[in-house]
């Protein structure tokens, strides 16, 4: 168990319990929560845990803010989508699409990284924002290739057509990649990243090339995000701007990382689970609340089901101020 978690134990009884609960719920999701909607939520949780964990590698461990993470997520989705749509719904097409997507992500992240990671964090954040929005427009414009705003609906290989099998593919792949990320951040390489986050000047003085380390971390994060995109597209059997490239998803990822806890992979698990479940079920609760407040000015509007992001945004601001280490940090401190 210790080797599986790379020696990075939760270090809090409550946190261990939560993580174990999430693990078992996800592992047995098709049996515990029958029904298409809850299985869909479970698959989304798996994919987003992976996506958020790869983002945490950048934000929490290396201390760089990227707004292009959804772009890599989208490259994965479009890679596999386009390959299947053009070739055939077979595993070889999936492999070709994934490989092409990984290559594209690697090249793009290297270029962005070499260009802008030399300078300040803020500079990188701005450049990634510009590039990602450009990519999103590009994807919706090249409708011959990407299906434009409608996206691509495609058939998947035989095995993935049963929902339970598809779910377990997503689950196992996400779990394996998550453990791999845990391995990375607890390796000597991960220690250097932490050093760069804490004080890049001192890390440089110790003889580490900070630009190289940052660029590698950036590319690694991009590659894992691409794989998450592949998994998500295979699960949805669809890929389009709204499911992968939307800026709103980038905001979601930020919320998940910060609320869960930056600088720890377990934060991604907690944050993503909390967020996806809230996204799917908080609205139901708010509908009830909004109806109950009917007649009072403004309040029903504030608690309107579509305004759920407002409350998560408030939670986000509060957690940046008062719980910079998020839920995980809070649990560990007690």
């Amino acid at each position: 168990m210790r080797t599986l978690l790379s020696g990075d134990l939760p270090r809090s009884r409550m946190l261990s319990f939560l993580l174990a609960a999430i693990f078992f719920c996800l592992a047995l999701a098709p049996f515990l929560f029958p029904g298409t909607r809850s299985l869909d939520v479970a698959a989304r949780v798996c994919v987003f845990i992976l996506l958020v964990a790869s983002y945490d590698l950048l934000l929490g461990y290396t201390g760089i803010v990227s707004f292009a993470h959804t772009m890599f997520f989208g490259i994965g989705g479009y890679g596999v989508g386009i390959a299947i749509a053009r070739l055939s719904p077979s595993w070889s097409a999936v492999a070709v699409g994934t490989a092409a997507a990984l290559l594209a992500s690697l090249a793009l992240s290297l270029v962005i990284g070499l260009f802008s990671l030399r300078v300040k964090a803020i500079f990188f954040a701005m450049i990634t924002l510009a590039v990602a929005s450009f990519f999103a427009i590009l994807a919706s414009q090249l409708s011959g290739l990407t299906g434009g705003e409608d996206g691509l609906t495609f058939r998947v290989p035989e095995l993935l057509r049963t929902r339970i099998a598809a779910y377990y593919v997503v689950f196992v792949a996400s779990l394996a990649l998550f453990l791999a990320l845990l391995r990375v951040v607890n390796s000597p390489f991960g220690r250097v990243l932490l050093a760069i986050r804490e004080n890049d000047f001192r890390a440089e003085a110790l003889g580490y090339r900070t630009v190289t380390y940052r660029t590698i971390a950036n590319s690694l994060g991009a590659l894992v995000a691409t794989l998450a995109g592949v998994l998500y597209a295979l699960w949805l059997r669809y890929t389009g701007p709204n499911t992968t490239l939307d800026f709103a998803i980038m905001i979601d990822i930020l919320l998940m990382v910060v609320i869960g806890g930056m600088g720890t992979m377990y934060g991604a698990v907690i944050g993503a689970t909390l967020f996806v479940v809230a996204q799917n079920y908080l609205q139901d609760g708010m509908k009830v609340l909004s109806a109950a407040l009917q007649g009072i000015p403004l309040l029903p509007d504030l608690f309107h089901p579509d305004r759920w992001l407002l409350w998560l945004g408030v939670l986000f601001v509060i957690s940046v101020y008062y719980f910079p280490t998020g839920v995980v940090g809070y649990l560990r401190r007690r």
Partner: protein
Amino acid sequence: MKAGRFDLIPVALVAVVTLGALGLIRTPSTWVTLTVAGLAMGLLIFIMASGLTLVFGLMDVLNFAHGIFIALGAYVAASAMKAFGGGLAALAPAMLGAMLAAGALGLLFERVIIRPVYGQHLKQILITTGGLIVAEQLIHVVWGPDLLPLERPEALRGALLFGDVALERYRLAAVLVGLAIFAAMALTLNRTRLGLLIRAGVENREMVEAMGYRVRRLFVGVFAAGCALAGLGGALWGMYQEAVTVQIGAQMMVLIFIVVIIGGLGSVTGCFIGALLVGLMANYVGYLSPKIALGSNILLMVLVLLWRPRGLYPVGKS
């Protein structure tokens, strides 16, 4: 801004782009139309971006929620235009209202969101993004989620014809307003004591503080003014597009970031030149080959950064 000799190469670059486009477009009347459109767009972007770059230069604060002031300005203007009947007379209250609302929100934003995180870049990016989410949702609460029409007053619709050159009235007006604001800003920054302090603060904050000035108070003023300008820019831009959605801020933010990066973070002159370049490029390329229009500004940014890695007019401190 002007330290020693003024660097004219970037200005020449604007001229080269403009004249180069004439060579490619060939029909002078189209070229004039496009140039005016580009200038109008560039000046509007400048109005929105100038506050952001000044704030960064002065206090090292980058506000990722700057777009929200743009959106707020546009929404307030839309409401005011509706309330005052939509004629030319409604223009003044609409613009003033947009500026006041955005400025007031700016003061609040500085106090609540930004003040606790001075000097911490990572937290600034996160917290201002959080503020953006909350403020966007609040706009939805107040104005509803739907697109809001923002019509131009009768007098500003249609185009003027000079020979075979058609110039949209609103664009001409936008150019005039933009130039007026740039002139006012340049005068304030270069000819008044306040401007002197701001420029000195951008150059070296500690020194100005050591001389007994409260740079932080100055900064709050600049922040609010920048937000007010963003609100005005948003109102004008909304009218340019004749519709307002909450995404208007986020869409403009991308262009504004490109402009600010091209110009050199913290430099007002750079911001002006960058905005003109981006506005002109967007219109020329949009006409010549619409397919690459989207990428042209990114390409421009990359080229500028290859040439001058810290922007056209790098500001003193790194």
